[in-house]
């Protein structure tokens, strides 16, 4: 099982202002797998996602998506390359309805018929959203907002999904359901996921690959199972 690498990151340096948060990050994510980036607060996990989607401009390094260099691609073009980024706090637009939020995820697509099909699929996948189409974003519960943000990304039929802290502020039951859904999407549609998590246990439980970041660098990249089972590694980098 040697899938081609969908995402290749080489020597990525990025940050805010003069001090880089990321210092030469290297990372590869094979197509159709889930990679979980874990690490302490301030390790640069969120910055990594923001640099990948172009929300902050990398100072150096290379990001290849399916072999294409993403350097200089405007943020709003990345959905067209197949990258979807669900930001921290999830970015549901409170003033828009559920249906409007979801449709927004597919508006850029030329293939209107398939955008409509993708929307229907998301409503099938997240049945509570279908019952709340006309509700405004701010009327939803935390779990529903999570579904909405995830569903909105899926309407664009991405190849690579970047997820920032999907478990943040959610009940364990909802977290478990989200993680199960990611696996299901990977198996069924070949979706590739790069997931950033504080919740190390559930992230490593769902992921194929575990990536440990510390102080702006990747210190370990290993099969998630290895990280889970290797006590020394866990103690050294994850503190449990």
């Amino acid at each position, binding site marked *: 099982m040697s899938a081609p690498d969908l995402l290749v990151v080489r020597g990525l340096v990025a940050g805010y202002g003069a001090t880089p948060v990321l210092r030469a990050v290297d990372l590869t994510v094979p197509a159709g797998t889930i990679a979980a980036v874990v690490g302490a607060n301030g390790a640069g996990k969120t910055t990594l996602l923001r640099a990948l*989607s172009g*929300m902050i401009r990398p100072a150096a390094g290379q990001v290849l998506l399916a072999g294409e260099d993403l350097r200089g691609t*405007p*943020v*709003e*073009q*990345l*959905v*067209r390359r197949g990258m*979807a*980024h669900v*930001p921290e*706090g999830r*970015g549901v*637009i*409170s*003033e*828009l309805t559920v249906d*409007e939020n979801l*449709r*927004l*995820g597919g*508006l*850029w697509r030329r293939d209107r018929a398939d955008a409509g099909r993708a929307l229907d699929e998301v409503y099938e996948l997240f049945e509570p959203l279908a019952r709340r189409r006309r509700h*405004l974003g*701010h009327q939803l519960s*935390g779990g529903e*907002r999570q579904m909405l943000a995830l569903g*909105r990304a899926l309407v*664009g039929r991405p190849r690579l999904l970047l997820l920032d802290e999907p478990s943040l502020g959610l009940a364990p039951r909802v977290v478990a359901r989200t993680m199960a859904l990611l696996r299901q999407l990977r198996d069924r549609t070949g979706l590739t996921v790069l997931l950033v998590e504080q919740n190390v246990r559930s992230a490593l439980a769902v992921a194929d690959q575990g990536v440990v970041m510390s102080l702006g660098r990747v210190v370990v990249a290993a099969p998630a199972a290895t990280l889970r089972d290797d006590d020394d590694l866990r103690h050294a980098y994850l503190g449990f």
Partner: protein
Amino acid sequence: MDRFVFLTVDGLSRGAVYAAFALALVLIWRAARVVNFAQGAMAVAAAYVAYSVSAATGSYWLGFVVAIVAGLLLGALVDRVVMRHVDHASPLNPVIVALGLVLVFQAVLGMVYGNEFRPADVPFSRSALTVGGVAVLSPYDLFVFAAIGVVVSALAWMFARTGVGLRMRAAAFAPEVSRLLGVNVGGMLTLGWALASGVGALAAMLVIPTELGLHPHAMDLVFVSAFTAAVVGGLDSPPGAVVGGLVVGLLLSYVSGYAGSDLTPLAVLVLLLAVLLVRPGGLFAPVAARRV
């Protein structure tokens, strides 16, 4: 009673213009968080373009269409060339720049066309038709209602029902998230400026002939009334702007009819002050949305 009917109709006709102008202010406020104090001067500039075209061709309608197009282009231009480059960190910056634009527009128009009133044409008669012995609406009033009704409905439909409208709303509410979803936020902002300025040009074309005529300052008082209308409606609410415009139009018509036209500028300012003191969010302020 006749007088009341006349003042009411006149107030609504004037209010429709305020409504359109207030709507233009709200469009830019929602998209860019800028109160476009230059809107009056920009609209007058578009009206002067129409004046030149009509004078050269003899066609009112050609001038009318050119005014709207000139308004659209001017709005896009002001955004791309000026406002885009203003640091919005302090809300005062764009306000000062907009006031500067007013001076520039009015000075240039004064140099090109002269600081004198020029009579502006109307396409329909302004004398009121009588219904059952009571003078009610003039054909021109009907034209004003129809033109503004069409534009307001078209905008409402666009924002509520079309993909472009959804993109524009999303870009205004959450620019960063919208970019991640493939929305060209800068383009939506420019489109918002263009539409607002086009609506402003339409309002200027409709109202200028009913006042003293074309002059670089022709829209100054209309701007104050429309700004009051927008504040009455709550700067964030397009329906509020329309209702606010009609309310201000009626109020001014009654004040001028029953108390004397000298008092109308004062009445506008009193209303503005009262709303700002009692309900600064406007009468249509939405209940604050919970943000998470």
